């Protein structure tokens, strides 16, 4: 990364390191370096402080451009029944924990929540969500037994949520890799079951991404997006040292708004996404 003799080469090397080590990916880093070179030639930036601010502004606008739901919290969409939210993503990304956190913030906001434990496969998955439902004091719909069809849990939960007129129904799904065709088909079927009951539902489909994930996050966004339109991302585990730079690609290439970030394992560790905070953290 060299743009001219006025700018210290160490600074440029340091900036390249920040860009690449953040997980924003090769092409995004290259395009930022290009804009910086151009800006320098046009005298729009003249020293390293200005370059840093220039880069931060560039990233901020990518994160917000045309994405009016950036940082928008979950709100009632359905005025005649439950707002239904499906939570999807690969194994271990933080779905179940994020559901607990979302539920807390919704309940704190004065609305009612019902949970559906539609992970009928993994050991103790239902127990895990049940413990959270008890801590939160919300009703949970569980499968009849292990290995039963997740679509039937979704069906029962949707029925009950409508009947009881809860404000929100949040559906926990099993982790799955997008390379598993049968599991992606299963997810598709679950969404169709919901649609049959409420045509505009699910009103939100949130993809959960692990903050340590590299470039595969983009593939996850594409493939999970084929099952159902993704209305938002939650990136978890940003309380670690990972920067989550791949979010820049999620916005730029897939136009999926980032709604929240997970900052820990406790129920209050959920923050609505702030492009400003994110970009500051990139340079820490």
């Amino acid at each position, binding site marked *: 990364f060299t743009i001219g003799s006025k700018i210290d080469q160490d600074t440029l090397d340091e900036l390249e*390191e920040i860009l*690449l*080590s*953040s*997980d924003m*990916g*090769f092409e995004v880093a290259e395009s930022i370096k290009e804009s910086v070179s151009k800006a320098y030639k046009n005298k729009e930036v003249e020293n390293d402080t200005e370059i840093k601010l220039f880069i931060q502004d560039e990233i901020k606008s990518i994160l917000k451009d045309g994405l009016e739901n950036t940082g928008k919290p979950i709100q009632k969409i359905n005025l005649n029944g439950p707002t239904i939210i499906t939570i999807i993503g*690969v*194994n*271990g*990304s*933080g779905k179940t924990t994020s559901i607990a956190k979302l539920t807390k913030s919704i309940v704190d906001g004065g609305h009612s929540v019902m949970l559906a434990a539609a992970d009928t*496969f*993994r*050991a*103790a998955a239902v*127990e*895990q969500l*049940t*413990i*959270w439902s008890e801590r939160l004091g919300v009703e949970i719909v569980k499968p009849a037994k292990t290995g039963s069809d997740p679509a039937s849990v979704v069906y029962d939960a949707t029925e009950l949520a409508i009947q009881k007129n809860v404000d929100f129904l949040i559906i926990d799904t099993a982790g799955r*890799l*997008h*390379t*598993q065709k049968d599991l992606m088909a299963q997810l598709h079927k679950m969404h169709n079951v919901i649609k049959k009951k409420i045509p505009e539902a699910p009103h939100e489909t949130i993809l959960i991404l*692990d903050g*340590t*994930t*590299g*470039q*595969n*996050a983009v*593939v996850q966004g594409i493939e999970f997006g084929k099952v159902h339109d993704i209305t938002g991302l939650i990136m978890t*585990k940003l*309380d*670690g*040292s*990972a*920067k989550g730079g*791949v979010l820049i690609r999620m916005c730029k290439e897939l136009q999926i708004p980032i709604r929240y970030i997970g900052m820990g*394992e406790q129920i209050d560790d959920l923050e609505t996404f702030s492009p400003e905070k994110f970009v500051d953290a990139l340079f820490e």
Partner: protein
Amino acid sequence: DLTEKLTNVFDTVRSRGKLTEENIGQACDSVRKALIEADVNFTIVKDFISRVREQALGEQKVKKIKAGDYFIKIVSDELTSLLGEGNAEIPFVKDGPTIIMMCGLQGSGKTTTVGKLAYKLKNEGRKPLLVAADIQRPAAIEQLHVLGEQVGVPVFSKQNSTPPEICIEALAVAKSENADVIILDTAGRLHVDEELMNELHLINKKVKPHQTYLVVDAMIGQDAVNSAKEFNDRLELDGLILTKLDGDSRGGAAISIRHVTGKTIKFVGMGEKLDALESFYPDRLASRILG
């Protein structure tokens, strides 16, 4: 695809199928891009590329093999050697149960891998005891009990006890169960969490596991070096396990964790079921990383 790109770099009329400084430079740029997109740590990529460039420049006199094929061979050989040899052998001790401790970041696949390892060892005629040392994640203990039941091995868990206390008591339990392997399932933790890293260090000190394996998700990005280095510095790992390799992430993190710790990648997770634990083949992963 990288092989095509590289073949095109060397097959132009100008280079006439020879290794020149110019086409080596172009080829190195393509490889650099491919490796970063594959999640290999960018500092490691830098050193790797300079070694490859040096080797390629030193071999300009090679006439027998086509230049492009020769360059590709340099790259994949270097990458394979960076990954190190796999070694699925577990060094069991003769005088008492062998203690294996699993550790790693949240959600990397530790508990599932404990189940898989127990399944493998039971099929090899051993008697593992599983230890539920994660007391903080909701239903973590239950999860291990379910897996133990599926495999058909005992699980030790205890209420109102700290993880170090549970692991110490497990040694006595292993005696009464006549177990010859003890596998400790620990809670996922951040390498930057002082308190939890101290807890792991304490378990290590009190229980002295014979084998400590870091369980890493194959889709992890640039941060892989940071967590792997910290766990290794605190615990002196004996091996690495790469999970979720049945996905399509390129797996470049394997290079990062191997390079920064110097430890062997012993197993790879290839699915959620108990039998989805395989030996590690560096040449297979090298070609996957190169894409």
